[in-house]
């Protein structure tokens, strides 16, 4: 959102700042407490550490005294925030006006779910923050203490490192997205923080708080975000290149997904997969035993149960246009398949084909619901490009 900064300010108002002192985490909690206190919202939705200490859970609450135990910037993302928003507003707008603090990718998932009729944003105030990335769930469960300190290091440097998830190292949407309020702290010295309104609703809430004007901090924050974005974009390029090679052709897909155990965890953890019953778990998608026998006769033998690749390619066909590359699928995979690398790579291309970017404001129409005369112009060229990308030696 850096390039559109002036436009954004016109629409949403001037940025505020919070002086160093409590550090970004303390400042965010403080401000959220003030918002509840001022009557701007009825409740908060924030991550809390679970009793066992090795994970986090979304808690919705209105008792401000609980705030001190919240973890605004958790090291991991066990449940994607988009799913939490969906649980609250699945049928109609929520009765309570809730402020939810989430990673940018969680808010982007919420935007996609809103377009898909699964989240109603009318009574939600969405707040995002500069996200350094999340630590792999597997690593965190094994050693929460050292992962916490690694994540704290990531926050101060603004960069994923070591045990960060691949999806985070390749993420370029880690800062301001289409949220109502954004907390920017990357690159701001001594633990100060910017509070940026992102919508008229966000502006209205912040205007009531008597905050200090923060335009002066914008340049250092913007410079740091661009610097970090460039670095992550380079990692993204590199990962995409490797992925393109790895999944090229049917054999490539087969090799990538050959140890898939068919648990469908990737689909359960995915914030975009919103179906009550996944098509690939339903009776209609199951291959008729007769057809299996026919196929076995014809080919000499088949893998049982069938359709392992079909599940993943089918899921790509169903959700890649809305995929926000949050990486939940990889975190959920018990056999360490780099699912998110493949899905991000494909999603980037399918979205490009329709000139669409997932996660932007919920006013934008989903590509498969609108019909434009020339929308598939150039797809042929894209396919050719992808082919030559996949086999650079030719």
């Amino acid at each position: 959102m850096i390039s559109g900064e002036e436009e954004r300010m016109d629409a949403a108002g001037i940025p505020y700042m919070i002086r160093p002192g409590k550090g970004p985490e303390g400042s965010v909690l403080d401000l959220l407490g003030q918002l509840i206190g001022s009557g701007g919202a009825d409740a908060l939705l924030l991550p809390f550490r679970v009793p066992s200490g090795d994970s986090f859970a979304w808690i919705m609450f209105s008792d401000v005294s609980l705030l001190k135990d919240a973890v605004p910037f958790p090291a991991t993302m066990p449940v994607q925030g988009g799913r939490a928003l969906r649980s609250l507003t699945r049928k109609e707008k929520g009765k309570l006006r809730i402020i939810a603090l989430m990673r940018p990718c969680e808010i982007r998932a919420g935007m996609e779910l809103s377009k898909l009729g699964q989240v109603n944003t009318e009574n939600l105030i969405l707040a995002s923050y500069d996200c350094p990335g999340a630590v792999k769930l597997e690593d965190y469960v094994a050693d929460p203490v050292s992962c916490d300190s690694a994540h704290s290091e990531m926050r101060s440097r603004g960069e994923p490192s070591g045990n960060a998830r691949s999806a985070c190292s390749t993420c370029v949407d880690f800062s301001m997205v289409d949220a109502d309020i954004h907390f920017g702290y990357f690159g701001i010295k001594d633990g100060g923080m910017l509070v940026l309104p992102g919508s008229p609703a966000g502006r209205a809430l912040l205007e009531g708080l008597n905050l200090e004007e923060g335009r002066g901090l914008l340049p250092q924050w913007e410079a740091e975000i661009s610097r970090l974005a460039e670095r992550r974009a380079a990692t993204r390029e590199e990962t995409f290149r490797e992925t393109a090679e790895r999944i090229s052709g049917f054999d490539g897909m087969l090799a990538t997904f050959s140890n898939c155990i068919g648990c469908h965890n990737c689909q359960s953890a995915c914030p975009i997969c919103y179906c009550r019953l996944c098509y690939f778990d339903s009776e209609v998608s199951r291959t008729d035993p007769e057809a299996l026998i026919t196929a076995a006769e014809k080919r000499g033998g088949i893998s049982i149960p069938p359709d392992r690749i079909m599940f993943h390619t089918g899921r790509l066909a169903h959700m890649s246009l809305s995929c926000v590359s949050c990486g939940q699928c990889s975190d959920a995979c018990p056999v360490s398949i780099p699912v998110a690398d493949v899905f991000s790579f494909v999603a980037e291309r399918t979205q490009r084909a329709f000139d669409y970017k997932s996660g932007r404001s919920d006013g934008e129409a989903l590509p498969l619901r609108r019909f434009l005369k020339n929308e598939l112009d150039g797809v042929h060229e894209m396919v050719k490009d992808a082919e030559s990308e996949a086999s650079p030696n030719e």
Partner: protein
Amino acid sequence: MRAKVGVYICECGPNIAEKVDIDGIIAGLSEFDGFGETELVVKKYGFLCSKSGREFLEEEIRNLGLTHLVIGACSPRDHDSTFKGVCGRTDLNPYLYRIINIREHCSWVIDDVEKATEKAESYLRGGIARVLRQSELFENPIDVNPDVLVIGGGVAGMQAALSLAAEDRRVSIVERSDRLGGRALELSGLSSGTFRGSDIAAGQVESVMGNPYIDVFLNTGVSSVIGFLGNFVIELLSDEDGATTEISSGAIIAATGCAVYDPSLSGSYNYSDRDDVYNPLEISRMLSSEGGVALRSGGRPENIALVHCAGRDELNYCSGICCGVMMKTALLLKESIPGVDITEFYRDICVPPHEGRQLYESVLEAGVDLVRVESAGLSGTTVSFREKSGVEDQRSFDMVVTAPALIPSPDTADIALLLGIPLDDTGFFQEAHRMTDPSGTTTDGVFIAGTSQGPRGILDSMRFARASAGLILTRLIIGEKLVPEVAVSEILEAYCTGCGNCLEVCVYGAIYSDGSKGVSVVNEAICRGCGNCFGSCPSGALRTKHFTNTQLYREVDEALR
């Protein structure tokens, strides 16, 4: 019960028999044991679609007690309904039959007999596999609704309504403004001689208001349209109090009229409200007012310029009626202001054959100065122009009358969207076919008339209105039954997540959202079974009867065995 599938292969004279080894297929299928307990009867026949062929099939179904029927023949577009009819005359449900196209797909397109035969046989195997998974469906004919909705109460809309009402059809006219009559009434000042368009319009208004078969809704728009020929449900929205009225009709005529281009929008016509620049409608109003034609300053104009073709370059079409209107305007101005000098700047003369020629001669006789130009522009009431010879000049006048193009009325695009009909590249309603079906549209049951389909005069608007009314009278016959599609879509509530994909892709408006349950619901009376929704549903909650996944997958699997 053990299934007994009858497979009948049509020779289609030499069409199929010459390129497909039918006896080979019969032998192959008879030996084939891939269908388990199912008994197959495989036979051939010369022309299955002939009377004797159909009787043969009926006897076979009855005498052999067939439970399913597969026909290997031509395209379903040719004879699907023929064989459905055969089933209908027996006890076999028509949805337990399947036609397989081995003519267009095999014998006509493959030269090699062996290959054509192999393909035909695999298609037939697929057909057998599919038909075994088909289910009985039952048709439920409903009465057609013979009533008609007319959108727009101008001369075209009123003419259509009167023609229909004369044949005892109930018609509803929806009119956005507060009166019937449309633009024709504004032309009273320009009407002359025995044919007066405004008089005709006024007469129509009287007839419509007194007609017991016609209901008129003034100050009203259309807010939603669902359904198809014989069965539309329309929601009307009152502009006055926002109240909605639901009406049903069997057909719709859109006659939403046109608007007049504003020449000051083009770069070459520069004038303001203070200048004496008018269009023919404004002149018409002056002519029929007490004060007659006068300048803003109060005096009579001594000389008037008539500038044709305002907007022709910008809009890139000729409205076709303006030349006649301008000539009439010239004559009436001459008559109304004794001694006035009139100059017409024209590019081409476009007038209809009979009246046009007389009009042209009258204009010459009346002493109107006709100047042929390549282009003309205005600066106030000064006309600058380039003659055909290339000479550029400018002349000042007391008054200028422009001939602006007719453009679509502002509602046209919205109405087109509601009715699901396209616009042509000038923004008017597009006909189904300009020559062969100029009153129909791409949506069955929706017709167009008048200037909503392009610029035209009062007489032509009325002609097209009569044509639309006539088409409806022959298509929508009182007492005839309509068989709604039975192979419709359904949504399994337990699986639906209410994402709304299907709602967006349904072209018939047959799906609605049940907000309280958070699911989408199909209105089976409106669904035509096109399958768009089926393709858009990621969760398998949608099913299109007669085209289920199981049926399609098994057909493909077996064909590719």
